[in-house]
């Protein structure tokens, strides 16, 4: 169909322009931000920690080194002052046993922190809103070092006499 006053070349070029723009958008969505892996339905599981260290929201939640979700929320329980980490697990991984344990680990020596899940053996599975009972808090390098130095300082005098 031909419009009044518009050349065919212009129409083709506008088509090229719009297609190019949409292709760029699609590339930004798929290739740059990985919407294919990040989107989709999730369910929320909570875990209490006495210390979350440097854990951030959006930090990965991993099982055996494979990312199955993200940390969605970090807050504090007003009653017992423990940190509550809400994890958004991809809905595909709905068969995590109910006695799964959670620990806060560090990727490499100084890398970003993430939540590692260690699946248990129960036959009941974690549902939306459930709580992970067994947790291990982040290892704090500072306290580790101070502990080490403290024990060194104490052991020295006992050995010297």
């Amino acid at each position, binding site marked *: 169909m031909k419009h009044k006053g518009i050349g065919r070349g212009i129409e083709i070029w*506008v088509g090229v322009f719009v297609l190019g*723009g949409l292709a760029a958008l699609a590339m*930004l969505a798929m290739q740059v931000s990985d919407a294919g892996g990040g989107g989709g339905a999730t369910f929320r599981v909570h875990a209490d920690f006495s210390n979350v260290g440097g854990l951030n929201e959006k930090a990965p939640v991993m099982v055996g080194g494979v990312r199955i979700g993200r940390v969605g929320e970090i807050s504090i329980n007003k009653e017992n002052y423990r940190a509550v980490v809400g994890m958004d697990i991809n809905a595909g991984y709905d068969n995590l046993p109910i006695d799964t344990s959670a620990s806060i680990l560090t990727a490499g020596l100084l890398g970003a922190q993430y939540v590692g899940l260690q699946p248990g053996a129960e036959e009941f599975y974690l549902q939306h809103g459930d709580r992970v009972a067994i947790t291990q808090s982040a290892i704090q390098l500072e306290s580790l070092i101070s502990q080490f130095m403290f024990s060194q300082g104490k052991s020295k005098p006992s050995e010297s006499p």
Partner: protein
Amino acid sequence: MKPLAALGRWVLAALARLGAAVLFLLRALGGSVRVLPRFSLVLEQLYCLGVLTMLITVVSGLFVGMVLGLQGYYQLVNFSAESSLGLVVALFLVRELGPVLSALLFAGRAGSALTGEIGLMKATEQLSAMEMMAVDPIVRIIGPRLLAGVLAMPLLAAMFSAVGVLGGYLIGHGQFGVDAGVYWSSMQNGVELFADVLNGIIKSVVFGFVITWVALFEGYHATPTSEGVSRATTRTVVTSSLAILGGDYILTALMFGGW
């Protein structure tokens, strides 16, 4: 008393101009709705505003991405963190440089042309002639240009970012040998579809709207002389560039400040 009066006159004039701009915007919005049945007019403007700006946008995006790749690598390699190069390049482009730089280019390339065109139409009394023939210039001239500007800007910004990311890859992988898989995967881990990409697109829609609004208003209200048109064109570029940079600060504070 005299400087006081001058200040008051200046403020009143500025306010009057702002009011005129808002009233003009309302009419232009009405015009862009009423022009929808004749979409070929919008297509024509998409060609003038979008297609003709595409080349400069893509070329600039490529070079900006390559510069980001160079500078990012030189800094990151000090911390042996060059594996994050992809993330740095992509976040810079998607969040800030893509929308802002393509908007500045759009203001310079398309906004000034719009003001010049409409100002000249006014100076040569084409707009009055249209009104004489019972053709509403707001619908026939302003409406399609506003629509086309708002539609073209996000597409241009997306092209800018996408080509920039490729440019960064070219330098990072081709020149410095950053691993291709690491480049893309650090990007995919760190860039969020909604928080980063979508907010960048929203920014560019806002910029497109503001640039086209300013350009059309300045053209439509230009003094109908050759000097007036040239002044209006200058004002378009200055005003819309300032609006882009100032608006970008506000939008960034709103979007990424954690609301």
